[in-house]
């Protein structure tokens, strides 16, 4: 096994084990699922009433009215939860001295960054997997479009990866977990609201740029069932860029001290 992969998996296992041992994971998981379930059930009840009364003129669609809206809400829950999951990343290791200790071993910065990323991503993938319950429940009352469900899941997984990378980068910048979480919230909210902010400059190049750089347009495309490579590449590039920056920050900190 190549060294990078071996070292990355070693750190990822340790991170995943630390998360599993942490009460925070269970609290976040419970809140995530309960909020998701609340939104889903509210939408499902509303959908059932509309379908029963046929107020929509026969055009009610469980995928559009329930599944897609639930995924939208889950996407915002990700933004709310990921900074809490990633804030400990490097900040905690730096505060307790483990980061310095690991830097004196043959372990490089990249396995450390990738391992911590994979550990957090495994936890978020588990959270996202829980949302499988929602379209399965929708199946009991109607027929959701599984292609849209699949692309919605992919969107949540890709967005999780990108947002975790941003959280890791913020955690690499500071010794304080609180500061790391606040920086992550600012970055993730900024990314999500970029399209809306761009719309304020309607008709200008800024609007187009904000649309492309903001996350909302890409999420929206996935939730419409569009699996265009551009949208996949957007999140993949975002994740890679911030993991790269996190590794560079750690490298530069070594030589700044």
């Amino acid at each position, binding site marked *: 096994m190549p060294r990078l992969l071996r070292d990355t998996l070693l*750190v990822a296992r340790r991170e995943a084990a630390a998360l599993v041992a942490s009460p925070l994971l269970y609290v976040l998981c419970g809140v995530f699922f309960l909020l998701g379930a609340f939104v889903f059930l509210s939408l499902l009840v509303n959908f059932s009433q509309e379908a029963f009364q046929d107020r929509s003129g026969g055009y009610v669609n469980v995928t559009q009215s329930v599944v897609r809206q639930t995924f939208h809400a889950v996407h915002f829950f990700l933004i709310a939860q990921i900074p809490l999951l990633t804030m400990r990343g490097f900040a905690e290791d730096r505060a307790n001295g483990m980061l*310095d200790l690991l830097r004196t071993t*043959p372990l490089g910065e990249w396995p450390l960054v990738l391992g911590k990323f994979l550990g957090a991503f495994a936890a978020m993938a588990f959270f996202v997997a829980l949302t499988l319950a929602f379209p399965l429940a929708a199946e009991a009352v109607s027929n959701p479009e599984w292609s849209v469900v699949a692309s919605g899941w992919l969107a949540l997984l890709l967005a999780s990866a990108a947002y975790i990378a941003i959280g890791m980068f913020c955690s690499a910048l500071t010794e304080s977990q609180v500061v790391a979480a606040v920086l992550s919230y600012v970055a993730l909210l900024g990314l999500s609201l970029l399209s809306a902010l761009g719309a304020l400059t309607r008709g200008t190049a800024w609007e187009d740029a904000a649309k492309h750089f903001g996350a909302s347009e890409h999420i929206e495309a996935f939730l419409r069932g569009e699996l265009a490579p551009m949208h996949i590449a957007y999140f993949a590039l975002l994740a890679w860029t911030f993991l790269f920056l996190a590794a560079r920050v750690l490298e530069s900190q070594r*030589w700044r001290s």
Partner: protein
Amino acid sequence: MRIDVHNLVKRYGATLSLDGVSFAVPEGSVVGLLGPNGAGKSTTIRILTGLARPGSGSATIGGFDSERDHAAIRARLGYLPELAPTYPDMTVEDFLGFMAGVRRIDGARARGEVDRVCALLDLGGWRGRLLRNLSKGTRQRAGIAQALLGEPSLVILDEPTAGLDPAQILEVRRIVAGLRGRATVLLSTHQLAEAEAVCDRVVVLNGGRVVLEGALAELTAAGAALALRYRGDRAALARELAARCPEVRAADAPDGAVLLGSDAAPEHWRARAAAAAVAAGELLALEDRRPTLESLFVQAVAKEQRIATPAA
């Protein structure tokens, strides 16, 4: 691995942390890095471990440059930082297994190494316990254990006995002394008795400069003196000493004895000093008095402070 430090200078903002530090650590020896707080010990260690870059000067470890070849150094280094960082959510066994992994020790060898260091540090009864639930002393021993995984050829220990009880301190000293010849050990400590007990050599830093360096045996021999107890006139003794052994300096010790010292070893002037005492009065006793590391340390640091603040 031999350590050679040449003229290290390190500045943090306006503070000069290291001001031309040079010393050598022979391969296989146990060397104590001593000094008061803020002397530059931690900065020196951070440069040697690749955690900081020197402003100027260089440090080579086994021929590897600490700045350029840090990967080669890290592969051979066992390091215990001050306060022994650990992962509190891990058991002792998992933590040591993880540290063996990051030190590229795999499979059966890793398990063997964890067994070995657990036995060495008497951690057998704690292997399955979470580190957060252990006493400071036991966590410290786990920290020392991780530094010894894989039998590194260079071991740097920063305050290894902090938080240990007296029995554990003696045990750790025995373990460190046992590394002599098998690894080069650099031991940063505030405990002079610890350095005296286990070190072959010492490097004393003060204000970012080396104020004392050398083999302990040579340093104490060079400062060797005789304590003279006699009955008689002090002025007469001074006259007799000046006449019979002019190279000898005399000073009154707090315990009433007269301390006699010289650049030459005492065996060269002991008989003449005794004759001077007999001539000046009645000789009661003439005892060897070797300086302790503590007295050498205090002298070196005080001398440096006098030089730094001549008006004081």
